[in-house]
């Protein structure tokens, strides 16, 4: 057997290894999300004074009221349906009246604003008086949710081991790219070296400066972002470096945001400023916007192109979410609706209908999570369908995309040029891909952004392409599973909606490129090239990170873990 054949077999073996490896990494990231959970025990207990009945208080924010959807249900006709909120903050427990008819009293004194309560204080709603007791006063067993039920059974991978796995994966991609068919040199390894340095610095800061035990969300983000960077090496080296720099900025933004939203009350005071800032950004975009591919969603600042709408996504989630006692106020909700309308309108004005669609779908998610009202959602959808018809009437190039939809092969050299290439090269890659840098998809316009699914499928294989799509869905599952484990509804709503936004964006990207939906030209989270896009993805990931109650309580968990060991 000559040397070339030996080399070829090694190349193919490496190619086959990567998908297995990627699936393993993604699995490990999600498996460790279930680790280090606080046991299912009540935080405090409420004892109803005249009956002696004990009610466990399970969440950081609890609605008290007569309606059955309340976290703490009081069967008393003098109590309002949504009466007050009992919430926990770093400073202790608080009670906040949310517009009840008969008022809320602490030790006999009526509360008008959020007021602190201490253990053994009496809280009176209607004719019912409850006494705040410690959590261990409640001694019945609670049924844990499925997500956490077997969390402690199997120890999952240590974060640093996960990091080593991810590093190796990126290095393997670099090795493949070094031996690519067209160019053979060591630049991919240099890029990988820089990438891994950035990743490990971030890891070290996270675990030692911020004392965070958990790193799985960041690990997943780094894994995906790294794939995006490595795919660019053989396509356009300059873009790979731009992507690396943008990723670094994204990591800084992530760390900043996690810190910034640590206190859900302080966040509220910034709300108006963020709203005005976001609208201002869109305004600047409309005035100074540069038209690119039919949409004026770019602005040029000192030679750097920026897509402001990507950053507005973060503001959008931020404005949409709120703590439980503020969630109920009408003003807060109306402000959000107006803000959404302005955002979607501005994007439509720029001609960026893909992003407008993402904003609109996210608006529906947030609106429903806040109000639980299907009527609002249906009304909004009806309005959107109407708006959509108007768009098709006045912007004919959008209608052209619809015309090609489902007729790819008839229009393979015309209006469905991009989709046809995506499908062809997806099938050309097979299960294991043709190897990093060996694809032909990379010569197709927008293959690194809108059509990146085809690029991934061709070079890394269909298994990895699908695994990435599934990983983003899993992010939504995870965000949903931790809803009641968040420290505030601000986090649970923002996390669910940030994940929802990413799922919708992924759907538009993947299905648009593969002709299941019309091509709208949006990016694939974390993978697609584009500085603004990746920065915004890390920003959105910060919301999910913040929703995890472990994020801000690491020292305590570490201490507890050490005590358990002893």
């Amino acid at each position, binding site marked *: 057997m000559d040397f070339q054949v030996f080399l070829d077999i090694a190349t193919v073996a490496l190619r086959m290894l990567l998908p297995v490896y990627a699936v393993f990494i993604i699995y490990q990231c999600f498996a460790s999300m279930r680790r280090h959970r606080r046991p299912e025990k009540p935080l405090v207990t409420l004892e109803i004074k005249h009956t002696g009945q004990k009610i466990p208080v399970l969440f950081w924010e609890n609605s008290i009221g007569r309606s059955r959807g309340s976290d703490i249900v009081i069967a008393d006709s003098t109590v309002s349906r949504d009466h007050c909120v009992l919430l926990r903050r770093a400073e202790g427990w608080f009670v906040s009246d949310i517009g009840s008819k008969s008022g809320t009293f602490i030790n006999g004194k009526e509360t008008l604003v959020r007021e602190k309560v201490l253990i053994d204080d009496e809280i009176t709603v209607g004719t019912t008086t409850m006494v705040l007791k410690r959590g261990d006063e409640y001694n019945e067993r609670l049924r844990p949710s499925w997500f956490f039920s077997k969390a402690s059974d199997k120890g999952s991978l240590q974060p640093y081991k996960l990091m080593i796995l991810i590093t190796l994966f990126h290095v393997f991609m670099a090795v493949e790219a070094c031996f690519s068919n067209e160019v053979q040199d060591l630049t991919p390894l240099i890029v990988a070296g820089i990438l891994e340095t950035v990743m490990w610095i971030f890891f070290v800061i996270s675990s030692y400066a911020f004392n965070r035990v958990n790193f799985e969300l960041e690990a997943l983000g780094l894994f995906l972002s790294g794939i995006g960077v490595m795919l660019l090496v053989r396509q356009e080296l300059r873009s790979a470096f731009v992507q690396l720099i943008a990723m670094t900025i994204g990591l800084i933004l992530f760390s900043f945001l996690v810190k910034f939203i640590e206190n859900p009350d302080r966040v509220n005071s910034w709300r108006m400023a963020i709203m005005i800032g976001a609208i201002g950004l869109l305004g600047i975009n409309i005035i100074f916007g540069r038209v690119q591919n039919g949409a004026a969603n770019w602005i040029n600042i000192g030679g750097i192109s920026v897509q402001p709408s990507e950053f507005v996504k973060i503001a959008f989630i931020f404005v949409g979410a709120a703590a439980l006692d503020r969630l109920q106020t009408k003003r807060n909700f109306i402000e959000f609706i107006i803000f959404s309308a302005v955002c979607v309108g501005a994007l439509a004005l720029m001609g960026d209908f893909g992003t407008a669609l993402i904003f609109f779908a996210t608006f529906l998610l947030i609106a429903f999570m806040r109000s639980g009202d299907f009527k609002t959602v249906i009304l909004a959808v009806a309005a959107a369908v109407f708006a959509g018809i108007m768009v098709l009437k006045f912007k004919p190039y959008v209608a052209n995309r619809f015309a090609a939809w489902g007729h790819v092969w008839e229009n*393979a050299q015309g209006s469905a040029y991009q989709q046809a290439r995506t499908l062809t090269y997806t099938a*050309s890659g097979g299960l*294991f891909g043709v190897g990093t840098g060996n694809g032909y998809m990379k010569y197709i316009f927008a293959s690194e952004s809108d059509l990146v699914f085809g690029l991934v499928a061709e070079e890394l294989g269909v298994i990895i392409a699908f695994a990435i799509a599934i990983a983003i869905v899993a992010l939504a599952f995870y965000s949903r599973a931790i809803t009641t484990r968040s420290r505030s*509804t601000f986090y649970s709503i923002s996390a669910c909606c940030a994940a929802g936004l990413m799922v919708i964006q992924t759907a538009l990207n993947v299905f648009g490129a593969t002709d299941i939906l019309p091509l709208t030209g949006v990016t694939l989270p974390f993978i697609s090239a584009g500085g603004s896009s990746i920065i915004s993805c890390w920003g959105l990931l910060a919301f999910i990170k913040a929703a995890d109650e472990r994020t801000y309580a690491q020292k305590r968990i570490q201490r507890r873990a050490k005590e358990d060991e002893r």
Partner: protein
Amino acid sequence: MKRIMQRSYLILIVSIAFFLGVCFLAFRVVTENSTWVQQPYNGHMSSSGGLAQAGSITDRDGTVLAYTDASGVRRYSDDYMTRLALLHVVGDNSLNISTAVQSTYRTELTNYSFIWGLGMPSSLKSSKSLTLTVDAAASTAAYEALGSKKGACVVYNYKTGELLCSTSNLSYDPENPPEITEENEEEYDGVYLDNAISSTFTPGSIFKIVTAASAIDHIPDIYDQTFYCDGEYEIEGSKITCEESHGELSFDEAFSHSCNVAFAQIAQQLGRENLTETAEKLGFNQALYLGDIPLTKSSFDVSKAGDNELAWAGIGQYEDLSNPMHMAILCASIASSGEAVKPYEIKDNESILKKIGLTQNGGNIKMLSVSTSDKVKDLMRNAANYYYNVRGLDLAGLDFCAKTGTAEIGKDKEPNAWFVGFTEDDEHPYAFAAVVAEGGYGISAAASVVQAAISALVYG
């Protein structure tokens, strides 16, 4: 927070919807990948049209029709005429001839499988060779007999379904394909179409087979009727003519003399519904296949025809169109008691097509009842005897049943010539169809093409 938890089911629904979409995409990838891959622009297939690693193609006797040489260049038959004769069957480096073996079975030839994709290093690639059922010599003989005229000839074994001869003109040399520009595109009009399976022509008198079959089924006393032909027949002010006045004719004689006047009357007796029913049973307006390759449908539509036009339709004019391969299948059904064996062109097709699970092969197409087909067979045998006795037509000494056709296609143009039928011989059971566009009279132009092909098959 419980309420928020409940409402977050919406996000779960969105995620599940997305997940289902991913499943649908995966399904499409698995089922449609070979279509997606086989695109002319696919960079992974660029050298020699992606055939650099393709296996060879041989005819039924092992004559090489296409192969890839040591330097990765795709080469075709050594014989110039064979290359031209089988261009549309074998194909060239491009995918322009979409029905050719090198287009339709490209993924098999290159051994593409979705599992490995197209990125395999060449040292680890294997290729698959295909053996065709066609006989290169017979196809070349038929092609030479066609001369410079546009047309096609197919012969297939009606007992086994093997396609033995298939040729189509206009053709070109696959070793040296023409560059078609705006200036010469008229000259090369339709060159990428395999006339044997992808074109339809006005059938003319060969359609009388259909009209006769319909009459046998629907007119009980057809054999007792006599027709009088004085050379022309007027319906609604329009004349249907014969070349000569045939005088008084029985049904049988009307068929063998191919009397337009008689058959126009029979078509009128039958009416639109009966004639359409028989035509559709016999494969008009129906999807038929050569192996996996769909034939262009023959068409018969008299739904908007007046009485006069119905009469014209009954003698194969009006808007009637026939596909040559379909005509051979129709003749095969008459040869074998109403049921035609489906034709195919890949010899080891059992294994290869079953493996990819796409086969249309196997089984028969029921077209006529046994008694009707036997009666039609008698009519065609008489017609053949008439040609043999009167015109001296001989098909390698074999007994045969046949029908000629001469289809008028316009005032300034020569008519299309047809010759369809089958041999009655256990050793050489051939169903055939030949069409020569603007070839003149069927018996002289088209029959000689079939004659050449069958001689090559029998003596060759």
